[in-house]
């Protein structure tokens, strides 16, 4: 243990807090556990189905928790806590209207098509529905996006380690990413899912103390609202909807249409229903009802995540004595940046042992997000790029081997992208840019493919390609001419986040319009080829043979009612 302590301390440069032996023991035990689980599960990973889809034997609870944990990467913890500090409670929209309806829609409406088609991936579904062209476009764009997202996780984790412990960024990136590479390499999706459940538990146990003790320090919700209003000099930081009537009246510079249609529809439905990183977890369920229920369980837990992410950001806004600033200003002045609010709150409340657990929670979040990206990347690369485009016929063992080595390759490329993220003012702005490029148009293609049998293969590939290109084009346009913001986001006051929302909305509209127009002038597939893939051509199994409390649709209704109540309470 003394050697381990020396090893960690050797990597330190300056620090916000100092870990004791107990804290380092807690962190070290976590690393031993995740690697140990990887080694244990290797014996159960013998086929491609085991490695890429965990043998399709997972229960609804395991899939549901893994579904949320895979999303609990750095963008959830560091990024959204930073956004809550920067934009106030408006950041909670990305958890509630910006997630829950889409997650329920995935489970209840879309999951039957994904699950019954027995596809390995979302690009795989597009291949069945539209053909190789759409699969190639979506697989390549997904692979690029996934590697970039993985870089975010690495950078965020390294940032936490730098701020809190003073560890060197390179040391943090390499130690955590090689650990993830090891356990995903060994056990594939099975190992990733099992570790995600472990990480989910640790994230909650490690992070939940911040809101509990923070609310005691603030003296309750009403006092916190007053403190925030005093500190920021305006009263619109703690309302979800009241200030969204115009672009100028809220901290984000966004209109309610951007939240509802940009975040609530395009970005949210795009991410939760077509991003293979999360969909892959649900596809590992043992049967269709479990897959549907997993989405509902995931939605219920997702709805609670603001307690450990948004609330700490708001508490930081109300309680921290020093004002946090953007990355560029922080680098110039030596002040702490928005992205450091969560570790600052952790250091504020957690003593020996608890601090180690809190740091472990952050590391677990980063590693679960990174593992999610890497395992999804390995699947899409192997099944949707390597097999159809590079080597069409090979044994299952060969593809299993490719998937394993691809895990290592993905980690190495991700390390390179980690350094790209450092120049962004807010981590979430970077994430939303990627979503608007790749996810928004993909949602247009998938939803038309599932619900509209007239959509043709040519419509699918053209819609997806032009939707993606139009989004990148709009981003370049604003970079070259900032006044274009008034056209794309309807306001020159729109902040980065608002611009991303509207760009995503436009990209989706372009994708849908192109798909519809091209479909009407090209020949559709015969209905016989659409069975199991498209609404109206597929007989969907009913849940009427099970009791009310076992029906996914019933619990989806309960979650929706709670969601509506939360929006009214914090209106």
């Amino acid at each position, binding site marked *: 243990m003394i050697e381990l302590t020396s090893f960690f301390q050797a990597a330190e440069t300056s620090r916000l807090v100092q870990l004791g032996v*107990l804290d380092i*023991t*807690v962190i070290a*035990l*976590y690393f031993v*556990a995740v690697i*140990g*689980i990887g080694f*244990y*599960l290797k*014996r*159960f990973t013998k086929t491609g189905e085991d490695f890429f889809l965990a043998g399709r034997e997972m229960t609804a609870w*395991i899939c549901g928790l893994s579904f949320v944990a895979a999303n609990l990467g750095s963008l959830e913890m560091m990024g959204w806590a930073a956004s809550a500090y920067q934009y106030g409670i408006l950041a909670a929209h990305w958890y509630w209207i910006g997630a829950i309806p889409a997650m329920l829609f995935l489970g209840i409406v879309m999951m039957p098509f994904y699950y019954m088609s027995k596809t390995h991936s979302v690009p795989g579904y597009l291949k069945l529905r539209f053909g190789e062209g759409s699969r190639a476009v979506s697989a390549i764009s997904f692979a690029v996006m996934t590697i970039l997202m993985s870089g975010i996780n690495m950078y965020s984790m390294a940032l936490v380690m730098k701020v809190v412990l003073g560890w060197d960024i390179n040391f943090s990136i390499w130690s955590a990413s090689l650990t993830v590479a090891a356990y995903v390499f060994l056990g594939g999706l099975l190992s990733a899912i*099992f570790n995600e*459940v*472990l990480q989910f*538990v*640790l994230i909650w*146990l490690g992070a939940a*103390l911040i809101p*509990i*003790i923070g609310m*005691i*320090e603030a003296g309750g919700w009403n006092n916190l609202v007053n403190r925030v209003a005093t500190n920021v000099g305006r009263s619109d930081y703690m309302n979800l909807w009241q200030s969204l009537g115009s672009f100028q009246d809220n901290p984000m510079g966004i209109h309610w249409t951007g939240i509802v249609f940009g975040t609530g529809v395009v970005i949210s439905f795009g991410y939760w229903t077509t991003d293979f990183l999360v969909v892959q977890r649900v596809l590992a369920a043992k049967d269709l009802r479990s897959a549907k229920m997993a989405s509902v369980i995931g939605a219920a837990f997702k709805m609670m995540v603001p307690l450990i992410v948004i609330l700490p950001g708001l508490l930081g806004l109300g309680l921290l004595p020093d004002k946090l600033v953007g990355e560029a200003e922080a680098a110039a002045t030596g002040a702490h940046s928005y992205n450091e609010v969560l570790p600052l709150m952790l*250091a*504020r*409340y*957690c*003593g*020996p*042992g*608890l601090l*180690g*657990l809190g740091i472990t929670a952050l590391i677990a979040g980063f590693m679960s997000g990174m593992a999610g990206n890497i395992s999804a990347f390995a699947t899409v690369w192997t099944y949707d790029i390597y097999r159809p485009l590079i080597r069409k016929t090979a044994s299952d063992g060969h593809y299993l081997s490719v998937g394993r080595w691809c895990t290592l390759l993905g980690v190495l490329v991700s390390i390179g992208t980690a350094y790209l993220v450092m120049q962004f003012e807010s981590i979430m702005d970077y994430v939303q840019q990627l979503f608007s490029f790749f996810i928004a148009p993909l949602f247009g293609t998938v939803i038309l493919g599932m619900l509209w049998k007239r959509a043709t293969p040519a419509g699918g590939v053209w819609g997806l390609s032009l939707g993606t290109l139009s989004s990148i084009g709009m981003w370049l346009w604003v970079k070259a001419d900032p006044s274009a913001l008034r056209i794309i986001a309807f306001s020159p006051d729109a902040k980065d986040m608002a611009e991303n929302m509207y760009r995503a909305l436009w990209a989706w509209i372009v994708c849908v319009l192109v798909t519809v127009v091209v479909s009407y002038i090209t020949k559709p597939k015969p209905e016989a080829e659409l069975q199991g893939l498209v609404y109206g051509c597929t007989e969907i199994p009913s849940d009427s043979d099970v009791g009310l409390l076992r029906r996914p649709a019933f619990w989806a209704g309960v979650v929706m009612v709670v969601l509506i109540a939360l929006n009214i309470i914090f209106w």
Partner: protein
Amino acid sequence: MEKMISIWFFIGLLLVAYGVIILGAGIYDYLNPIKNTVVLAELHAGIWWGALILALGLYWAITEAPKKD
């Protein structure tokens, strides 16, 4: 065919270890309050949070332990 051990058993074991460490540190801090440097240290969060983690860990480690056939 080898039966897979439940993930909840592994989680239980890890939480037992964490519970012992955090509860132990909390009790030590209670007895030596000078060392506390965090805000609201007087709440002794390590004691009650550590006890909760230990209880949760024991529950999963016992109920999900692999059984001999």
